[in-house]
């Protein structure tokens, strides 16, 4: 059976959930071979094996932490040369897409980004994408070279499928471009203890109607009662009420959780572009005419300052 390369997104050996989802999708088109780079690469092996990786190719060097993107492209290119895979799958993070793009160019292949589903086809893997603010669904394939496809988080359920996961050292020679962009400083983001926005199963967002940074505590309390991530509309971010890293929408993050709860968000097209593929959509808004209500499975026309705390209390009560 053909092998499929899966690029591993991990933090010091802790594999992030979108990579485990990729392993599930990879098994539909071949045998997953994982590529883990940088500090902690070898410690990813157990989690990757548990989710179907037949082999785990690893390499660590200071270049991965000291220079932007290109060392990882060099390594992935070396892996492609070593494995001759049927496809290369990369998580659709901002960096993942950049790595995938440069790799595709180097190996003479096409690239598809932000796939939300993947299946085997007669002429190679077929990727489903959600476009134009989720108003269309397209099916595409790479028509030249080895398909390079990036996949959005929450595109597949993580399934355990134990495999050998044999760790093998990957031989990497860095290109002249590898050291072109130096990372001179790094400030880790302070953990809020909440799930990562793009990976969360539930997202609770606040918008203009939250009316001030101090009121975002209400949104956070609701999120915490559900174990959810917190999102914000562009209006709320531009007003300085919540960090840009939490912005959901066309110029922020695109989320596709099981449940999305929009509070005080009118639902401008730019916001809808970032959340419209959520499985279940719920909104609380004072304005019965707000376009967000066109999208909802359940909507409450009311003041979020009344509805949200009552909802939070009720959830806590029900959860005991």
């Amino acid at each position, binding site marked *: 059976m053909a092998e499929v390369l899966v690029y591993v997104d991990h933090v010091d050996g802790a594999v992030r959930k979108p990579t485990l989802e990729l392993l599930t999708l990879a098994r539909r088109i071949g045998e997953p071979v994982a590529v883990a780079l940088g500090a902690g690469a070898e410690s990813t092996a157990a989690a990757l094996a548990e989710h179907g990786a037949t082999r785990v190719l690893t390499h660590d060097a200071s270049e991965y932490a000291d220079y932007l993107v290109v060392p990882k492209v060099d390594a992935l290119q070396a892996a492609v040369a070593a494995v001759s895979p049927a496809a290369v799958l990369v998580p659709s993070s901002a960096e993942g897409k950049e790595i995938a793009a440069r790799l595709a160019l180097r190996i003479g292949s096409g*690239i598809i*980004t932000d796939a939300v589903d993947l299946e085997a086809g007669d002429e190679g893997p077929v990727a489903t994408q959600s476009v134009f603010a989720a108003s269309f669904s*397209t099916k595409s394939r790479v028509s030249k070279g080895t398909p390079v496809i990036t996949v959005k988080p929450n595109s597949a359920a993580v399934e355990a499928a134990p495999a050998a996961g044999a760790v093998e050292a990957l031989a990497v020679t860095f290109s002249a471009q590898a050291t072109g962009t130096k990372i001179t400083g790094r*400030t880790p*983001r302070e953990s809020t203890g909440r799930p990562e926005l793009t990976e969360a199963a539930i997202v609770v967002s606040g918008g203009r109607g939250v009316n001030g940074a101090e009121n975002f505590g209400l949104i956070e309390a609701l999120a915490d009662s559900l174990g959810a991530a917190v999102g914000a509309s562009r209006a709320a971010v531009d007003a300085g009420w919540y960090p840009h890293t939490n912005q959901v929408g066309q110029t922020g993050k695109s989320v596709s959780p099981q449940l999305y709860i929009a509070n005080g968000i009118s639902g401008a097209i730019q916001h809808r572009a970032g959340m419209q593929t959520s499985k279940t959509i719920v909104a*609380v808004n004072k304005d019965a005419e707000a376009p967000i209500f066109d999208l909802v499975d359940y909507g409450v026309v009311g003041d979020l300052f009344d509805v949200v705390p009552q909802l939070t209390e009720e959830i806590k009560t029900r959860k005991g």
Partner: protein
Amino acid sequence: MSLRIVVTVKYVPDATGDRHFADDLTVDRDDVDGLLSELDEYAVEQALQISENSDDDVEITVLTVGPEDAKDALRKALSMGADKAVHVEDDDLHGTDAIGTSLVLAKAIEKAGYDLVISGLASTDGTMGVVPALLAERLGVPQVTLLSEVSVEDGTVKGRRDGDAASEQLEASLPAVVSVTDQSGEARYPSFKGIMAAKKKPVQSWDLSDLDLEAGEVGLEGAWTAVESATQRPARTAGTIVKDEGEGGKQLAEFLAGQKFI
């Protein structure tokens, strides 16, 4: 010293319009108004700010690949303050994908001459966000991408990249390719004077032969990817909407419990 900046911009269908696909599964541009991709305005703005903060002579060229109407996007950028524009236009470009677009842009950037390329973080239609990285790869220069802050001094570009896990400080020597996010600074509105001045600024038109490219290298025929189908999503079935009369939160909790979220 002089600094030549090329800003790549895209003319996109208005997201508030009814966007859809043509019969050949390319984006239908005839039925929807186009405009300068909002995210590219940030790239133009940063080019202008680099120019304003520089002691060197800075020349800003805006570059687009697109149909006749794409000149509107160039005019907008010129009215904001860019110095000149290049429009790559050719019937054979219809249906060009990201890999092909990066080829055309790279050829045009080399022909125009550059020290720094600035792009937006993604177009607002395709939203792939891969063209800046592809340009860096093709041009063989450093990529300094997704910057929320950018500065250029003494042949070095520096910036801040805010990722999910960390905020990074980046540094590279020119020439380089930069992309900027919508956090880099609000884009200015063109002034009346700027709009009038833009009408007199040069807009060069190049076709594929000007760039030594063959038709088969680009367009639908040369594309590295193939769209097999595009299906309009059925409108969502109308959801339940209740008016809060004191129990709205509890009713919502009941719904969430019914859906097994609680």
